[in-house]
């Protein structure tokens, strides 16, 4: 089904104030309810190559698959919707593409990228992520971080070595423990959340959340929620005003109304029988 009427999407990406080029890459496909953000790493322009490959591969493949498949169909093997399987497969495919490129071409050796993939379908959002790019949800005036960073810092917080307060001034903020394209295989973290009309989702690279406090992000989103494009630009501007030491990328997705997935006749019968 066409979600372009249901989801309002705005995005903005900027190299920041210090870096000469942008290693972040974003892609959105409102019709298919798909947004992808990647923050590349690796020497010279390899980071850009990795993040660019990740977004292109995933969006292109998913678009093709979603043209013929309903993501809310039940997978007979796992008894869950097939969306999770689809997303995971495409993440793994992107991983091998990047890994292969890095192996075959010396200038790309060691490149990789963080990743957030969010697929909106059937009144829910499925999110797969790797690394320290994030998904936030603003609902009823409260901003909540839905993804948990795969970073050394997060592990230190989880194991009690650092408090969240200490973490703000910690070193190694930039060390991620999972990324796309670094190893031959990878397991993305996948979760699913129910969406509600009025929800505002924010996908961002660490260039935003390292430079702008969560409460300031929340304030900007609430103040400018009426104009998503402006809100996205404002967030980037706030990161740059605070120093803009990294590339900054944001994608905003507003759920305007319900969007139940189309169900097959059999599914309806089963639902009615239950």
């Amino acid at each position, binding site marked *: 089904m066409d979600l372009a009427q249901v989801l309002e999407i705005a995005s903005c990406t900027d190299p920041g104030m*210090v*870096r000469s080029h942008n290693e972040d890459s974003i892609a959105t496909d409102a019709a298919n309810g798909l947004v992808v953000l990647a*923050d590349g*790493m690796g020497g010279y322009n390899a*980071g850009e190559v990795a993040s660019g490959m990740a977004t292109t591969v995933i969006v292109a493949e998913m678009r093709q698959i979603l043209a013929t498949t309903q993501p809310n169909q039940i997978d007979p093997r796992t008894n869950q919707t097939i969306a999770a399987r689809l997303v995971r497969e495409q993440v793994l495919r992107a991983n091998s593409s990047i890994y292969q490129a890095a192996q075959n071409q010396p200038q790309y*050796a*060691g490149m*990789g990228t*963080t990743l957030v993939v969010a697929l909106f379908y059937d009144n829910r959002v499925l999110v797969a992520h790797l*690394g*320290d790019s994030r998904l936030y949800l603003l609902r009823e005036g409260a901003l909540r971080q839905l993804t948990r960073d795969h970073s*050394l810092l997060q*592990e*230190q917080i989880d*194991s*009690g*070595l650092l408090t969240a307060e200490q973490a*703000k*001034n*910690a*070193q*190694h*903020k*930039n*060390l*991620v*423990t*999972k*990324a796309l394209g*670094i*190893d031959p295989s990878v397991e993305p973290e996948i979760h699913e959340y129910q969406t509600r009309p009025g929800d505002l989702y924010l996908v961002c690279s*660490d260039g935003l959340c*390292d*430079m*702008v*406090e969560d409460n*300031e992000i929340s*304030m*900007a989103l609430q*103040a*400018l929620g*009426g*104009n998503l494009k*402006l809100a996205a630009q*404002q967030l980037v*501007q*706030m990161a740059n*005003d*605070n*120093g803009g*030491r*990294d590339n900054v990328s944001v994608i905003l997705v507003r759920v305007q109304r319900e969007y139940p997935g189309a169900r097959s006749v059999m599914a309806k019968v089963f639902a009615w029988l239950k």
Partner: protein
Amino acid sequence: MAKLILSMDGLVLKEIPLSKERTSIGRKPHNDIQIDNLAVSGEHAVIVTILNDSFLEDLGSTNGTVVNGNPIKKHFLQNNDVIELGKYKLKFVAEAGPAAGVEKSDFEKTMVLRPAAARQPDDAPRSTPGANRAAAVQQAATAAAMAGFADAKDATKTVPPAPQPASAPRPAGQPLGAIQLLSGANAGKELELTKPLTTLGKPGVQVAVLTRRPQGYFITHVEGAARPNVNGQQIGPAPHALKDHDVIELAGVKMEFFVKG
């Protein structure tokens, strides 16, 4: 290391590294930087360098020392400052050359830390259970601090110990702005713009936002068919910089923006 570039009439004469704690400048030959010109005093000025900071001090010279066009007595030298002594110019170039810059930005770049790389060659179990987890993480942190992990294959680079604050503090000297309502039910009321963002107007009718940025205050149109007026002129879609005593008209209400200082 910081250095000075000596030039006259745009012609570069010499590059002088600030290798000593005290670098003297003057006409007499015992100075570290000798400038043989009658406009320069015998002992004209001195540059004191402590770690990465350099301070310039005029030693009571006859013709004085000028930095970037301003006569100074004492001055904390910043990158690209130009010191003028008579016809001669000394350009101060701070330490952060391209090499240092690359190193710094490398540090802040996102890098992947692979647990496999931190492990001993004999393949330890992939997940460390329970109590050992914290120790493992700590170990990884130490390993990361020591090795830098710019690249798992090339773990010899050192990470400069330069933790950066989460967000740069707002400039302290930034003037505070405020608006005063000139018409409507609340005419005369004043609102200080302390927050980074302040929304104004009626939702659904016309809304604008005032943003507080290091450069000053800006007004941006958010929603509504018409954009707000500033001094009788409708603003464009881009943020509009506000000047002291600008009059804003929004959703039928007039207000004045002013700087409280």
